[in-house]
Structure formats: C-alpha cells, structure tokens
C-alpha cells in the first residue's frame, strides 16, 4: 500500500509540475536589485583593474582571454620565475579545497563527491574517498588534531577522517547550510548560515576534537553563504562575501572583540592572519590590517583580477611571504608592499606550503614550485 502511495505521489507531483507557468523573463526590477547589491564592488574592481593595467606594481592584468604573462627579457624584480619540480595529476573534476597535513595533501572535490589523499613526498595519489554524491558532498576541508575534517554540504555533517586509513571516525551534525570549515586554537570551526534556535543568521560552531562534539555555538556578524572563518594568533577572523567589514571572534566566548572596516568584496574573503598583520584579499587589492586595532594599514595591488573567472586564495609561508593565487600566482615579501608576479605557472586556484615546499593547485593538478627570486628584490 505504501509503494502505491509513493507512486501516486510521484505521478501526481510530476503532473502538477507540468502545469507550472512558463519561466517569465527576469524582471527589470530583479536585475536592478541584483546589480544594486553588487555595483559598488564592481566599480571598485574596474578602478583597480585600470590601475593595475596602467603599470603599477605588477603591470599585467590577468584577464581570462589575456595572453599568458611571459617573463621579461631582462631581469625585473617585479617578476619571479617558477620552475615546476613535480606534477601530480588529481583524479578530480575540479578541486574545491585543499588542506595539508604533514607531507600529505587532502583535496576535496565537491563536483564528484570525492576526497583525495596525496602523498607529496612520494608524489602520488594514495587514497580516494567518496563523500556524498556529486555536487552535494565535500565543500570544505581542514586539518588539525591529527585528523582530516571534511564538511559534507548535503548532510551538514563534519566528518572526522583518520589520515592513515581514510576511515571516518567521527560525525558531527551542523545545522543550517554549513559551507566553511577551519582549524585553529585546538578546535574545529564551522560556519553555517542558520537556522539555529529559530534564527536564520550566521552561526559559528566550535567543535572539540577531544570529544568529537560541538562545545559552543554563537551567532556571528555576517550574512550569506560566502562566509569564512580564519583562525589566527588573535582569535578567529570572520568575513563574508558581499558584506563590508571583518570581525575578530574570541575563541573562548565566541563574541566579536574587534572589527575592521576592510571590505572583502563579493568573493568569499581570503583572510590570512599572522602575529603582526592580518592580510585580506579583496576586490580592491591585498589589504593589510593591524590585528591590534583593526585599522587598515596598507592596500597593495595584486595580479588577481576579480573580473576574470579566477578563484582566489591566500597563504602566508613560514618566512612571511604572502602568496596570492587566482589564475596567475603572485607574492609579497615580508616587509615589502610590492607584489611580484610569478611566471611559469598559470591557472593557479590555491597555494599551500608543505614541509617548506611551495605547492599550488590548478584545480586538477598539484604542482611543486621552485620560485627564483631575483637579487634586486628585497630580502625577507
């Protein structure tokens, strides 16, 4: 009888769906509303693009159709040259997120629902895990407390994976639409776009690896699915795409203790906190924030072009160099406010440091890079 009801429901709903009205054109009002929420960021982007193309620091605009940047004939400190030392093809459609644990990289592929373990020393893929169905599964990945943590978008569960075996050894349910995961201060941090206790706003979940359990949840400033949590020395920095301002959250109380007026623009913010500076990649450039006051202390032009179809990423290596991915790779030396375009590797969507080696992700391949820094560049 139940099967009969199932069939009746399926058939009736499909019949009813066929009677749905035809798709009307997107109304002018809707277009206007979409643009109104985004016009500011686009305007800034245009201004930045114009400035960069005028030959500021980089001098190369990374438009999709633009020719691949070539190293200049004479040594130019604005350009660094990368040599590919190793190339590891990934069995993915398009990597979504990458996290490093020791000498292994863990790659999430939301498009196919896979998580890949890569042995960076042996330079080969050593495990493929299936987490959820295609375009429903792993949307964010982090490492910490000796484990790999994967956020499964469709179930809203944080999965704890034993790195040696690939076995799922813990499952923690997050409410609402969780889209971002990070590790820091001894805890796993997940951001979710409500609802929680009847409120549909951003919530930060603090997960204790010792108990595999959520130990605190609190609403945090921000809105929308493009929010990220970036733990750093001062606490957990939170920022949201399309929302001006980032906030520093106290890891114990989960209360906002500081805000900074930096506007990440429309992309998921890329925030790299260090002891002396918090770097934020925005559509207006790479912004340096004083972590003690939240004040913006510098804005640097970069090669990342928000108008191009380029996914940005930001990493600070142990020597203090700031690496900026997003089609071309560029970098900033510690103590310098000049960015340098790295030639020899294009289509870069992520950058990471593993055992002092620089690795970049093209979406389907991990590349180990040896970057030559000309002598005229200031030393770190």
């Amino acid at each position, binding site marked *: *009888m*139940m099967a*009969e*009801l*199932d069939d*009746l*429901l*399926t*058939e*009736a*709903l*499909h*019949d*009813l*769906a066929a*009677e*749905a*009205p035809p*798709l*009307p054109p*997107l*109304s002018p009002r*809707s*277009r206007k*509303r*979409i*643009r109104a*929420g*985004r016009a500011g960021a*686009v305007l800034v982007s245009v201004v930045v693009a114009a400035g960069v193309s005028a030959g500021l620091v980089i001098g190369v605009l990374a438009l999709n159709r633009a020719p691949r940047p070539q190293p200049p004939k004479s040594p130019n400190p604005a350009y660094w040259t990368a040599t590919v030392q190793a190339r590891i093809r990934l069995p993915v459609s398009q990597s*979504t997120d990458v996290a490093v644990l020791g000498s292994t990289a863990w790659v999430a592929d*939301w*498009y196919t629902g896979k998580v890949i373990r890569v042995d960076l020393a042996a330079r080969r893929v050593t495990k493929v895990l299936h987490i959820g169905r295609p*375009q*429903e599964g792993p*949307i964010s990945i982090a490492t910490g407390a000796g484990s790999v943590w994967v956020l499964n*978008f*469709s*179930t*809203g569960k944080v999965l704890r994976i034993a790195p040696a075996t690939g076995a799922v050894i813990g499952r923690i*349910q997050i*409410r*609402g*639409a969780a*889209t971002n995961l990070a590790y820091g201060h001894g805890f796993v941090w997940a951001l979710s776009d409500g*609802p929680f206790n009847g409120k*549909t706003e951003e919530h930060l979940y603090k997960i204790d690896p010792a108990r595999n359990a959520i130990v605190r949840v609190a609403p945090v400033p921000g809105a*929308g*699915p*493009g929010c990220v949590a970036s733990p750093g020395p001062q606490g957990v920095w939170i920022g*949201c*795409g*399309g929302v001006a301002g980032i906030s520093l959250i106290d890891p114990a109380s989960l209360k906002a203790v500081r805000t900074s007026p930096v506007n990440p623009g*429309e*992309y*998921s913010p890329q925030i790299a906190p260090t002891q002396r500076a918090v770097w934020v990649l925005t559509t207006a450039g790479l912004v340096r924030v004083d972590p003690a006051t939240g004040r913006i202390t510098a804005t640097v032009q970069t090669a990342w072009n*928000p*108008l191009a*179809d380029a*996914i940005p990423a930001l990493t600070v290596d142990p020597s203090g160099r700031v690496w900026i991915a997003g089609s071309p790779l560029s970098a900033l030396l510690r103590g310098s406010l000049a960015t340098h375009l790295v030639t020899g590797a294009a289509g870069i969507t992520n950058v990471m440091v593993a055992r002092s080696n620089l690795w970049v992700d093209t979406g389907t391949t991990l590349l180990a890079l040896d970057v030559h820094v000309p002598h005229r560049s200031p030393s770190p």
Partner: protein
Amino acid sequence: VRDPSDGDNLEALYLRHGPEALRLAYLLTGDPELSEDLMQEAFVRVARRLSGLRNADSFRWYLRRTVVNLANSHLRRRRVERAELKRLVSHAAAGVSAPDLAAKQAVRGAIEQLPARQRAVVVLRYYEDLTDQQIASVLGCPVGSVKSSLHRAAAVLRQHLGQEE
C-alpha cells in the same frame, strides 16, 4: 566563480536554474502568480550572493532552499484557508471521469491540504527525489524531523485517500 551581475552570466543562470525553481515554487504553493514572485525573489537573493561562493554550482542548492523557505514563510503568513483547500479537493473530485485521473486529482487535493512543512517534505521527496539527509539540508532541520514529517504526511494522505497501512 563568475560574477552573476554580468548580463550574460545572469541570464544563463536564470535560464539554467529558473525553471526548476519555478516548478518547485508552484508545487509548494499551487499558485502560478505567487510561484513566479517567489521564484524571482529567491533568485534575486541568491544571485546577489553568488560570487561569495567558491562553488558556483552550489547556487542550485541555495536557490532550492530559498524557494522552500520563502514558500513556507508565505504560507505561514497567509494561513492558507482550509476552506479554499477543501474547495480544491472537491473540485478535483468533481472533475474526474477516468478512474486513474480521479486518483491523481484526489492525491493532488490531498497534497494541497498538508501543512506547509509537510508539503515541502513530500515535494522534495517525491518530486525532487531527494534523500532524507538532503531534505534536511534544504529545510535546515534534523534528519529525524524530515522522517517524522514524512511519516505524518503519509498518514494524512492515506486518510484522505482512504488507504490503510
């Protein structure tokens, strides 16, 4: 992730995801005009946020979730009149000629009598073909709530359709 405020991208997104969202809104509300309004509102809300997503393809999931949330809150606000629903059921029953058509229309009438949340669960399960976990993700509720809503909805539907477990 492309900027959806770019005209071509926006149009392509709308054409790609709009029909599915519109059908879902129609199934949840049963009202052609209202479903168009809800779909456009949901599209605006999600499109404004799109480039905040590292995965542009998750657009579909957010759109689906937004349509369901908007439909639910609208129905809650409007307190869809039982009398109107009863009229729909009797209308469905009166208009039948062939037995299978009668059964389908009775099912449709019974679905329309379900409370908003149960109807959403039924539509997401039997039309969108989502798993319990996926429905929980769309509705932002625990999987257990989905299972209990489905169970309650099935009981109500069986009662209306004169079926027994």
